[in-house]
């Protein structure tokens, strides 16, 4: 079930003019604060009325300015997870979770499954005031899921949490994506979350769609570096776990060769997606010898992009995938980098953080 958004909305001096399609899986709406992400997701939910355009989920039209269609919020069947949880303080966790079903006059049919998925079984009889931020946000996700939505809208659900709580919730979101099959529209300005969760990416800038497409493809575009931030730019490389060595190194296979990373908690055969930050990649003309870095892979230069700063973003072909490397202009000149050049890409194992490795990307069958 895909979401189609084509809306225009004036908010004071700010104008939103956004068109994109979000297929199954997780579509991340990415952009700086003020880019219009929250306005878009609120329009999809029906909390804001666009001036013109159309919004549809599958073949269900939710908004069509031309035909005068504007389905009210409570009839849209979209679960909304807000930045601040917004649990009902007068209800227990259990009653919060059952709220959506109660509005339909039913009991939630998969309560136990969702409770297990989110690990909130021990919280059921508590009040929201007695929950930690991370717990409250998991309950909020469960509450939205249990309203049986056609699609889940998540507006920076991790933004109000500290790094430790984020790391605690991300695996649950990965399981959610893999196990429930509910399409998700996820608003974020955090590249690490995008790398972990996005199957599809919509990059917003100043109220407009700058780029949209599969996440691996969009993130391998060096032209987006100024929007994403050069330090956060990095390509996503699909890889499969091959084996775990006793010294704590996990061997993976990507299309361009073997990849050695610090121990990953996943069985051999598991499909992963590794985010390789452009600034962590070293380029060499000759295959280096006697180096501590474990990963030395053959690559070919596809494109070079020079921004206003001292760096050059180099797009590289790695097997069937694309890798990005960021080097200084001086290095680019010294190596005589040009399209088609054959190089070696060097990557320290430890330069890939655990948080940059995404699991469970294959959608539920």
């Amino acid at each position: 079930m895909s979401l189609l958004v084509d809306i225009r909305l004036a908010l004071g001096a700010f104008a939103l003019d956004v068109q994109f399609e979000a297929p199954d899986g997780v579509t991340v709406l990415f952009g700086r604060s003020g880019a219009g992400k929250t306005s878009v997701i609120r329009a999809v939910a029906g909390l804001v009325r666009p001036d013109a355009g159309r919004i549809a989920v599958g073949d269900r039209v939710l908004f069509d300015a031309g035909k005068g269609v504007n389905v009210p919020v409570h009839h849209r069947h979209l679960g909304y997870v807000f930045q601040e949880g917004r649990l009902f303080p007068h209800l227990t966790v259990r009653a919060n979770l059952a709220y959506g079903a109660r509005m339909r006059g039913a009991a939630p049919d998969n309560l136990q499954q969702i409770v297990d998925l989110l690990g909130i079984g021990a919280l059921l009889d508590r009040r929201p005031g007695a929950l930690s931020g991370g717990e409250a946000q998991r309950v909020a996700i469960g509450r939205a899921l249990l309203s049986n939505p056609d699609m889940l809208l998540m507006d920076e659900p991790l933004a109000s949490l500290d790094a430790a709580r984020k790391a605690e919730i991300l695996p649950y979101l990965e399981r959610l994506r893999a196990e429930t099959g509910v399409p998700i529209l996820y608003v974020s300005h955090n590249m690490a979350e995008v790398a972990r969760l996005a199957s599809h990416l919509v990059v917003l800038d100043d109220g407009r769609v700058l780029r949209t497409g599969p996440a691996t493809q969009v993130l391998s575009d060096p032209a987006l570096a100024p929007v994403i931030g050069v330090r956060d730019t990095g390509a996503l490389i699909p890889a499969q776990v091959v084996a775990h060595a006793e010294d704590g190194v996990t061997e993976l296979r990507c299309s361009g060769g073997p990849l050695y990373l610090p121990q990953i908690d996943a069985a051999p055969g598991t499909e992963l997606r590794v985010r390789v930050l452009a600034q962590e990649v070293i380029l060499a003309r000759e295959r280096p010898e006697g180096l501590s870095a474990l990963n030395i892979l053959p690559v070919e230069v596809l494109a070079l992009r020079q921004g206003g700063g001292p760096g050059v973003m180099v797009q590289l072909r790695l097997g069937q995938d694309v890798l990005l490397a960021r080097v200084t202009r001086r290095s680019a000149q010294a190596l005589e980098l040009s399209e088609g050049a054959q190089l070696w890409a060097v990557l320290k194992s430890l330069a890939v953080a655990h948080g940059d490795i995404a699991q469970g990307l294959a959608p539920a069958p």
Partner: protein
Amino acid sequence: MEFLEPQEWQAVALSLKVAFWATLLSLPVAVWVAHILARKEFPGRQLLNGLVHLPLVLPPVVTGYLLLLGFGRQGPLGGVLYDWFGITLAFRWTGAALAAAIMGFPLMVRAIRLAIEAVDPRLEEAAATLGASRFKVFATVTLPLILPGVIAGAVLGFAKAMGEFGATITFVSNIPGETRTVPSAIYAFLQVPGGEASAMRLVIIALIVAMGALILSEWLARRVARRIAGT
């Protein structure tokens, strides 16, 4: 009852009856008006706010006289009520209930409105995304959260209704057994020689009711805060 003479007991019982009906019937209207004033933007909002508060600042005698003009048998509203429903308000206890309700109304609306304004509208938004219609949002989220405020408003309104004097005596006079409430009875006892003892007993009753209502409504108001904190 030993403490009270039959005449005095009659006034207390009548006051309780008048205050009970005044509170019961005006409470839903007060919740509705408070909700509109707290949450809706519409032309005439300030006018409505002014009208609601008018009985608080007008001399009660004026309110009573306006009620008499409007709800007397010959009045535009009183005439309709009598012709269509056979209801008479002027010089009846029902009229005393109406006067008490109108005088207590601003107090009720204020208490309930404060409670509604303390409810985070984002919770109501969240309820809507979960499939709750506007009415269900109100019934399942707003109302439970403001319930202590509603009760506090009702207690204040009840106490005001028990003590209403000026509008009542102007609108429905001071008829023993029909419209002689506690304040009217106190006034009447003070007009006759030797009535001081009766008046004093009723004054004590009035004090107890008023203090009790204030303490109760304070206690309930504190519960609003705790309930919204959600612990």
